[in-house]
């Protein structure tokens, strides 16, 4: 089942000279884990925001083409309506804290209160997301007192509590230390396993290779390719788009060893280990 359909999407920010997204077309199936890669200003954030309606409703600007998320055409629905279908987590954990709540528990309730969920259900939902993202132990802390990793998991919990089927994340770990990033990726993966469709923009290619089913490669607002991590990272022209493949792929490329029976290079630590062991035998 197609969960997201993007057709000929064009978008220009107000005051900008050039298109931020230029004729973007792709679709995503229910339950897929999709990575978006591309150098800075390639259009990753804009595309993420187009999926939740911030583009065009928040920024205005010139908009063409179609984005259909779970049956709703983004252009014709408010951000609040869309938020029931698709949630978004941003880069900076700090600015996602509402600032109007004094505990993590209340913070997560914020969105649920806004969309009018009955009280008893609010409590059930909060208890379940606290457990899901493993932040139960800090539920009574002030949101601003959390570590970056905890704060970002709280942000995800706040979104997940609204029960969207689709989760969009824009470089959610760029401000976190490796341990914090790992916590967040583990949490996203467990959501993905529960059937939530995940779309993740990220610079850390090793993580993309490890977690994503398919990868969307953007350059100058256009889709260059949309394929499995193996196919994408085996491309010879990645550097031309300002990207480097995961270190495992680079080393195997240099040694000229591909995955058995395919035209692809390994993209994860495990794959590289397997291939390189086999190679020596």
């Amino acid at each position, binding site marked *: 089942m197609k969960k997201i359909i993007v057709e000929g999407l064009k978008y220009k920010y107000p005051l900008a000279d050039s298109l931020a997204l230029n004729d973007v077309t792709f679709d995503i199936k229910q339950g897929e884990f999709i990575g978006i890669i591309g150098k*800075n200003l390639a259009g990753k954030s804009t595309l993420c925001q187009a999926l939740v309606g911030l583009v065009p409703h928040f920024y205005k600007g010139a908009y063409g083409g179609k984005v259909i998320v779970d049956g709703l055409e983004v252009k014709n629905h408010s951000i609040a309506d869309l938020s029931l279908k698709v949630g978004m987590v941003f880069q900076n954990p700090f600015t996602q804290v509402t600032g109007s709540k004094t505990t993590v528990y209340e913070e997560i309730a914020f969105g649920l209160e806004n969309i009018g969920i009955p009280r008893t259900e609010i409590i059930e939902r909060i208890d379940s997301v606290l457990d899901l993202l493993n932040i139960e132990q800090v539920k009574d802390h002030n949101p601003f007192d959390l570590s970056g990793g905890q704060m970002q998991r709280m942000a995800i919990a706040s979104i997940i509590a609204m029960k969207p089927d689709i989760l969009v994340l824009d*470089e959610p770990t*760029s401000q976190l230390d490796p341990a*914090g990033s790992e916590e967040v990726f583990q949490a996203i993966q467990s959501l993905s396993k529960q059937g939530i469709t995940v779309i993740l923009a990220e610079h850390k290619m090793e993580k993309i290779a490890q977690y994503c089913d398919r990868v969307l490669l953007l350059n100058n607002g256009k889709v260059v390719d949309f394929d499995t991590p193996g196919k994408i990272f085996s491309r010879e022209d990645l550097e031309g788009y300002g990207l480097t493949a995961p*270190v495992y792929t680079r080393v195997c490329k*240099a040694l000229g060893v591909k995955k058995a029976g395919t035209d692809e290079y390994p993209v994860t*630590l495990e794959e590289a280990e397997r291939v390189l062991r086999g190679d020596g035998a």
Partner: protein
Amino acid sequence: MIKIANLSFSYNKETRVLSGINLEFDRRSTAIIGQNGAGKTTLVKLMKGLLKADEGKILIHEHDVSGKTAAQLARTIGLVFQNPNDQIFKRTVLDEVMFGPLNIKMDKQTAKEKAIEALKMVELDDKLEMNPHDLSLSEKKLLCIASVVAMDTDIIIFDEPTIAQDHGGKEKIRQIIQALKDKNKLVMTIIHDMDFVAENFERTIVFNDGQVLLDGETRDVFSQKELLKTACVEAPGITKLAERLGFKDTVLTVDEFINMKKTYSPPQ
């Protein structure tokens, strides 16, 4: 160049951020790694005179930092903060880079020369008259680096230079660090990107819970698997791969890996 003896610091009475730090820095480029909250930034702020130690001493070029203000120390030690938006004060790129040199009483002509030289390094010398806030985030970060480089200090410290940089941005930062090393300056960085550490820094110090857990040649540090785990730090990807394949020596770069692979065949 820097000597730290028995240094301790706490923001409030209950929690000690740093305790009993003893370190000496020579001209080797040094990466400081460890989890958030391990005390890395606090150490840097102490060296810079932005905080005052509870106990212990820091000597820079044999001078005790405790007697000097941060502004006085700015002549010897430069620090690039993590968030560019916190440190851009002027309206044009050129003025921004000249801000530091003028503060430390360089004359205008020299300040301008140093500024342009630094801007060339980060390839922003064609944008002298632009408003810094019209630059992209990664350009702003490079601008902030240039504005510290222009002060021509003996010691330069970076706080998370590679955050939110794409491949191109990282490549530029790598070149700047190399150029500073060539000028015989002490380059230090706080960083979470281990691949970048492995490829660019001679010495690595691992902080954990306000103490130095590991300190030495980067290669030796990344071979200490168990201790790294204690500090919640992972070795670079290529190092892990080599280790899994049973390579005898610790590998830091792709080139090293390839060389070693040629002379080695894995156990059957």
